[in-house]
């Protein structure tokens, strides 16, 4: 369920980054207040445990297909919300850097969907309500299943919201939601079952492990504040940003006192403009739309706005070729150009 960088607009990615970064700061502050250094290595190794546990796959009953533990809810049950959020966040950072899961700018969204929701929503509002501190297997089973399913479904809803707000996909909101929710319901059921089975095993063999997390005395509206901030940041700001010019366009318009920046019309400008027109072998990056396209676009209410054309594509490929060749030339003058170092870097 990791969101990739390319699926997000900078505004949505930035808004969720701001919310998730604040959550890291908030959680780190809360953990520091506990002043319990012994749990620092526990957080670290439990983060690493998530990676390791994901390597042990299992057969999903009734389907024959394979699956693995997600670990969000399990870590929260073991560590409590603040420590679990930090542990899950560290796992997501490493996944984005080394396993190509998500991306650097999508980290904000992924932390929100995969760490904030299980740690700060599903655990305190669902698992704790159902399971409480009771040892009753029925209450624990209900809590695990309900919390895991709710975490997965809410996460999937957030993915749909973030991607739709970014305006990258053509999928309509409702179709996208209908596609995502059933899949994540199934994943949630499996996650709930594994979490329950692991918690039950630990309860029988090492019950002390489950008593490590402190009873939360923090007001429960804090997670809601962060959710609200994410919705305002991701939703409201992105809806404004789509209709307003970007920062550079705004600044240029303010300076020039007009919406578009045109040439000044003086002699020097004209001279360079005509020179450019004569020398350009790929003139203008405007569309070369087919006749059919012109007709259809004229009748269509919406118009496509971009710089893609055959000449544009060829131009960009030439830039790519130039950059690649420049790299080869620069290699000779750089420390990488020395054979020994270059080889050690390559192998």
């Amino acid at each position: 369920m990791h969101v990739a960088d390319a699926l997000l607009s900078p505004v949505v990615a930035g808004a969720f980054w701001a919310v998730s970064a604040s959550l890291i700061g908030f959680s780190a502050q809360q953990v520091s207040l506990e002043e319990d250094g012994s749990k620092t290595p526990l957080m670290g190794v439990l983060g690493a445990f998530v990676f390791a546990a994901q390597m042990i796959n299992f057969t999903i009953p009734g389907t024959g297909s394979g699956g693995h533990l997600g670990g969000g809810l399990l870590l929260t049950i073991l560590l409590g919300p603040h420590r679990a959020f930090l542990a899950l966040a560290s796992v997501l950072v490493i996944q984005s850097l080394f396993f190509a899961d998500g991306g650097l700018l999508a980290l904000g969204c992924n932390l929100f969907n995969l760490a904030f929701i299980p740690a700060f929503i599903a655990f305190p509002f669902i698992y704790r309500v159902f399971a409480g501190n009771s040892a009753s297997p029925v209450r624990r089973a209900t809590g695990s299943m309900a919390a895991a399913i709710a975490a997965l479904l809410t996460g999937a809803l957030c993915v749909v919201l973030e991607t739709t707000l970014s305006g990258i996909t053509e999928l309509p909101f409702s179709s996208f939601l209908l596609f995502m929710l059933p899949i994540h319901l199934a994943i949630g059921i499996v996650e709930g079952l594994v979490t329950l089975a692991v918690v039950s095993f630990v309860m029988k063999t090492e019950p002390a492990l489950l008593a490590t997390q402190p009873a939360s005395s923090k007001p429960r509206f804090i997670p809601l504040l962060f959710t609200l901030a994410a919705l305002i940041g991701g939703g409201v700001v992105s809806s404004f940003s789509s209709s307003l010019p970007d920062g550079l366009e705004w600044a240029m318009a303010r300076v020039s006192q007009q919406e578009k920046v045109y040439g000044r019309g003086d002699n020097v400008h004209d001279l360079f403009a005509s020179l450019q027109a004569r020398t350009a072998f790929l003139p203008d990056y405007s569309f070369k739309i087919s006749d059919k396209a012109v007709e259809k676009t004229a009748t269509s209410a919406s118009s496509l706005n971009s710089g893609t054309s055959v000449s544009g594509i060829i131009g960009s490929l030439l830039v790519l070729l130039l950059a690649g060749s420049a790299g080869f030339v620069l290699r000779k003058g750089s420390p990488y150009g020395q054979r020994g170092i270059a080889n050690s870097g390559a192998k």
Partner: protein
Amino acid sequence: MKDINILTPRGQTLTPFLSISDHTALILSAMFLLFVLSVPKYNIPAVISYASFPLLLITAADLPVKPLLHRLLLLSPFVLIMAAANPWLDRRPFLDLFGITVSGGVISGLVLVLKTMVAMTALQLLTHLVPFNRLAFALKGVGVPELFVTQLLLVYRYSFLLAEEARSMKKARDMRSFGGKGKGLFTTAKLIGSLLIRTTSRAEKIYMAMTARGFHSGFVEKKATPLFTGVDIASLVVSFLGFLVVRMVFIH
């Protein structure tokens, strides 16, 4: 890769052109990704042009292309589904390519895949040029809480050790499994539970060892180093201008 890291001054990233601080490399990567993400969804030339920056680094630093390409093949299925859906949902004729009319959905799907590939390559380059421990310290340099940096370092270090343990447990289970028996969800959950118990007992030993060596709350060095040197600022400005030029030329 290791040798390059030994040769670079401590806390400095050796790019093919100059040595910049690790946090500058981190900021530069984030800035580049922001520019790539801001490419409109129908603009192929802009994405291809932005690909020239990582390509320049790859060729100039003689970085291994094969592992990078291999990693690119691991494109998220989620992205591929989204990209594949676009041609079905947006059939407006968009471009006349040698007599063939290409729809807007094909273009936007292609842009999505290309953007993912460029973003992934940029991240791969960052992790190639800056080792993880220094990347974590660089995060501290840009204001990330010390506790989280310590957490990152611990997770990274112990992932390898626990992965080895998980691998041998899985191997032992698979060797005793006949016709898929014993690989079910509930049996495997017990295996995961055992791994969890081993993990927590390992955490206790680690804590005792760390305390014996003077650990208090984090690993991050207290030594104050200047955040940005002149070279760092110049690299950031020049890169920003380069990214901006591509934007101004290819995005109207």
